[in-house]
């Protein structure tokens, strides 16, 4: 290693630790007793986790979050990939107008659709259901737009070759476009998953039933669990936070491998 790159590596490590330090600190805190935390004497314990899972239902919230974010990611990716393919490859009456409408949705702040969505779901009786948590997020204008741009970068000749080989449009999408666009699709999926995982407002509005709470709702409620007046049980909150962060982190490590593989595959053409 040249001194230059050693310096850079050192610098990168320091910056990386800087970014990571709040996370590390909160993980550290989650293994501490409340008393220890407030008196400054470290005492290792797992009771925060036991409390979060046993008393405060975090296993259930975790499951809900996985179901909701996972479904949203899979369905939204499917819908937007198909929309992107249609917008990128087919001319049809009203196509341009429709695409303009999709782009226009990007300019609407999400909070504006909160009440209409609520009223719609209330009318069809989907409040307090998984479907109510999932459905509003499956039409993702940004994903459709982003993937359309990516697909437009794939030579049309590949589609045409597949048609000549006997493929139907759906086969072209599934066997040619999707594998080639995989890095973009995975990135988009990661983005959708994280956004949904961190979504707070919609689950708060759409669900009253405690059994359908997602992690973010559960987490916010922990602030109100006070060991004594005006004191927050931070170690408990941090244990719950760790439960919240961990799956995303693991998921990222898993997906990231695919991202890198996809990208180098594109590079060699």
């Amino acid at each position: 290693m040249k001194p230059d790159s050693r310096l850079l590596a050192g610098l990168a490590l320091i910056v990386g630790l800087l970014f990571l330090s709040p996370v590390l600190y909160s993980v550290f805190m989650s293994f501490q007793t409340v008393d220890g935390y407030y008196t400054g004497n470290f005492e290792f314990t797992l009771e925060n986790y036991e409390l979060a899972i046993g008393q405060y239902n975090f296993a259930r919230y975790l499951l809900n979050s996985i179901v909701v974010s996972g479904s949203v990611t899979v369905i939204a990716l499917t819908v937007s990939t198909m929309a992107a393919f249609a917008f990128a490859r087919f001319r049809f009456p009203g196509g341009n107008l429709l695409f303009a409408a999709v782009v226009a949705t990007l300019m609407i702040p999400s909070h504006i659709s909160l009440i209409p969505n609520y009223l719609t779901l209330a009318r069809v009786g989907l409040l307090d259901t998984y479907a109510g948590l999932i459905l509003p997020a499956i039409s993702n204008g940004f994903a459709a737009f982003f993937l359309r741009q990516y697909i437009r970068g794939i030579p049309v000749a590949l589609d045409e070759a597949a048609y000549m080989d006997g493929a139907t449009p759906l086969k072209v999408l599934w066997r040619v476009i999707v594998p080639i666009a995989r890095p973009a699709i995975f990135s988009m999926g990661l983005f959708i998953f994280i956004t949904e995982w961190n979504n707070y407002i919609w689950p708060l509005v759409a669900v009253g039933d405690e059994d359908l709470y997602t992690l973010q709702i559960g987490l916010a409620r922990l602030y109100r669990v006070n060991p004594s007046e005006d004191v927050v049980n931070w170690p408990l909150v941090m244990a719950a936070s760790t439960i919240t962060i961990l799956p995303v982190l693991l998921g990222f490590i898993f997906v990231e491998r695919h991202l890198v593989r996809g990208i180098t595959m594109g590079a060699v053409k």
Partner: protein
Amino acid sequence: MSGIELTDIRKSYPGGPEVLHGVSLDMRAGEFIVIVGPSGCGKSTLLRLIAGLEKCDQGDIRIGGKRVNDVAPQDRDIAMIFQNYALYPHMNVRQNIAFGLELRGVAKAERNARAEEVARTLKLEPYLDRKPGALSGGQRQRVAMGRAMARNSSIFLMDEPLSNLDNALRVAMRSEIKELHRQLGATVVYVTHDQSEALSLADRIAVLKDGDLLQFDTPGAIYDRPANRFVAGFLGMLPTNFLPIEALPFWPGKTGLTVGMRPEHMKVHTSSPQAAAIPARVVFSEMTGANLVLHCESDVGRLIVTAPRQDMAGGEETVWIGYDTDQAIYFDAQSESRVDMA
């Protein structure tokens, strides 16, 4: 085996001018047809219409006697080789070749066997597990051929399949394509802008210019009896000399015609011959092997002729150009169409 019949095909792209102005071609089953013409004349468009990748505005496309204007490309059972090969980058050579079979529901063992058989024919066996990105241009070209061959289609469309190869490879692949056609017995429609490819490959050549079909005939007929001045100039190794008949000493008294004289029919004399000849000055000469191509300046205009190298060993600067008038092709000076002279 299917022939292809095009009747009065017209095509324009959205918002653009018409690019094909009523082309009719009757290609018989098993024929090797070359569509040749300068770039932008509509060759690819014509091929894509046959493939079904474009729709025509007017006219009929029949394959094997059946009208296919409204049949989707995937249902026409045509194999196509694209100019840039369009290999699937995420599949290895085996999968690329077998993809068409897979889509038709051929079992894995069978399609892999077929892919390997095709790869053997094309000398691609060592590369079966490679992705297209790890192949040379020539190997990619072969994979593209293999992909087309795997399905045993009765029609092959090729859009300038050799234009991205270097010269030696191009000439080698040319004879392989010809050999393949002989083996497969399929109808081939081959698009190129290269007249020598057209002459060497075709059973019949269709010459296209600006969206019009100028001539559709055998290479020999097109070479000997070009329909007009453009066809005469376009096909042939060396540029044909076009001169007004009045200016030439070979046809005293004739007027109103342009004469097309191919360099290979002109005789170069180093001293003034008995017969009529055009005195000329050699401006420069190109070595092509046994022959020299001489670019000459004369009273009647610039002339390009060839001469055996040993005849010109002295570095002659003044020559006399004689001509075998039986070989002349005559064109109407106004319309530029060929005129038969008894």
